[in-house]
């Protein structure tokens, strides 16, 4: 077993271990923090499919995070006010079912990723970065200026949504849901990376010309990766909104996009567990430094700068050494 594998197992076990210890010590706030880390890690795992595997530096993933969040907010707000979402041409009612909300969040963000990806992927490099950033911002302003769902103020949902057989308002049970989703998605991301699709996608990142020469279209590979990536980040958005019982345009903001990317970098680009390490570290820093100073973002900025300039493998790269090629 390689060092990275050991490290991954430790990292992965750390989340539930922390949550359980917090449960024993009766510290629900810490459970919530760990839950937040798990959900943000999920968003990072989503972006990492596009960024780490596909080399697509999307600075607009807040778009999908926000769409997931608003899918939850809109459906739940209609359920809580007992007003249908729409009546013509057919009746759609709100829902408090987490599973249905997830389905809608995944579908909506996948569709948005399809549209944004189809346009943005016509370009590469810096253009791609700027365009994804711009589309994210477009949705941000849309959310602000669309008054039906709270506009700038956002939407509050009073009660967490339902999950069959669990009490979602109990922090540890909600943590279990978030962690369960993260586990499933990590497993799927690991499979995708090693599947034929992952081989071709990652080859297109390394050398697009090579992929074309063997008769595979990089655009299609990247678009599919972008859609999967957006869908996962959208799911994370729905969970994040459920955690806070609140959605606002902030979820769409460019800072959110930047932070999701920061998780990946702090952990290590292209590493399966990079976003888990990065998100956990981010939450830890936010909690520790945020307690020390109101200006903790300065320290975050400095840390990020140091990682980018001097420790490009991120946490996992620094601890586990160079990535070995897959078998």
């Amino acid at each position, binding site marked *: 077993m390689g060092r990275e594998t050991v490290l991954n197992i430790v990292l992965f076990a750390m989340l539930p271990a922390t949550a359980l210890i917090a449960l024993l010590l009766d510290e629900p706030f810490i459970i919530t923090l760990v839950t937040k880390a798990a959900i943000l890690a999920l968003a990072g795992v989503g972006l990492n499919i596009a960024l780490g595997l596909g080399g697509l530096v999307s600075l607009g993933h807040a778009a999908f995070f926000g769409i997931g969040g608003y899918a939850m907010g809109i459906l739940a707000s209609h359920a809580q006010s007992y007003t249908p979402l729409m009546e013509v041409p057919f009746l759609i009612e709100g829902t408090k079912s987490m599973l249905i909300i997830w389905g809608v969040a995944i579908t909506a963000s996948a569709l948005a990723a399809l549209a944004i990806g189809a346009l943005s992927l016509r370009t590469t490099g810096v253009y791609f970065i700027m365009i994804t950033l711009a589309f994210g911002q477009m949705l941000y302003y849309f959310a602000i200026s669309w008054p039906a769902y709270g506009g700038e103020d956002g939407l509050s949902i009073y009660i967490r949504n339902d999950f069959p057989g669990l009490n979602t308002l109990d922090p540890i049970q909600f943590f279990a849901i978030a962690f369960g989703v993260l586990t499933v998605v990590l497993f*799927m991301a690991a*499979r*995708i990376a*090693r*599947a*034929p*699709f*992952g*081989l*071709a996608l*990652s*080859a297109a990142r*390394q*050398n697009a*010309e*090579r*992929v*074309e*020469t*063997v*008769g*595979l*279209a990089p655009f299609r*590979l990247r678009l*599919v990766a972008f859609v999967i990536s957006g869908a996962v980040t959208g799911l994370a958005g729905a969970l994040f909104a459920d955690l806070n019982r609140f959605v606002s345009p902030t979820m769409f903001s460019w800072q959110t996009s930047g932070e999701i990317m920061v998780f990946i970098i702090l952990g290590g680009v292209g590493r399966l567990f990079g976003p888990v390490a990065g998100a956990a570290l981010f939450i830890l820093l936010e909690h520790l430094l945020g307690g020390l100073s109101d200006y903790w973002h300065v320290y975050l900025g400095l840390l990020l700068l140091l990682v980018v300039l001097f420790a490009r493998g991120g946490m996992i790269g620094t601890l586990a050494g160079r990535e070995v*090629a*897959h*078998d």
Partner: protein
Amino acid sequence: MTDAVLNLSHLHKSFGALKATDDVSLTLMPGEIHALIGPNGAGKSTLIKQIAGGLRSDSGTVEFAGRDVTPLGTVARARAGLGRTFQISSLAMEYTVLQNAVLGALGQEGGVMRFFRPVMKDRALVDRALAALERVGLVDQATKRTADLSHGQRRLLEVAVALTLAPKVFLMDEPMAGLGASGSKRLTGFLDDLRAEAPILLVEHDMDAVFALADRISVLVYGRVIATGTAEEIRRDPMVREAYLGSEDAA
């Protein structure tokens, strides 16, 4: 007479005032090695891109096994059966040698939109890749990172990836470069046999290899084909001697 597998007719390409490709027509017949030679800057790279689909021609057509592929891009031409190797190795450098070959096999067999089963456990793909590596003598290096290969080995891997595609035509851009004397000799022998599988359009600077292998040779100078013929005819052609072989005056 059998039909040409690859048929270029009246290709043109200009960059501003520079005519990089000037009314080039040539054919590649089944079972033949057709070498394309010419001094640096003659427009070989441009012509290769026009054939492979990376560069759109200003006018003229590229026909491939009787099918007009002029409007198609690189991907579609590869799917139509064009196996290309690059002058400067164009491989996925982070991958192992085997992974690069499997990528080729995947391109040939299709099914890239599979998301669950590990590709390196796909027997059919891996076997096909290994068989290609075996043929170029790289099977011992299969687990090595491509970035760690020598330049000559990368050349061979390029050829192996092209083999996994089971193409109808090979388009090889200086496969001998960097191989060294013994390596070039081995590859010469290999290409000699390969022509029976699919004809080869060979762009090469190594004149020993060209004159040993080529059924026909075309000479490209300033974007124009100034002569096409057998090795013997090309050697004797006064225009070629003047324009290209020049002062060497050898052979």
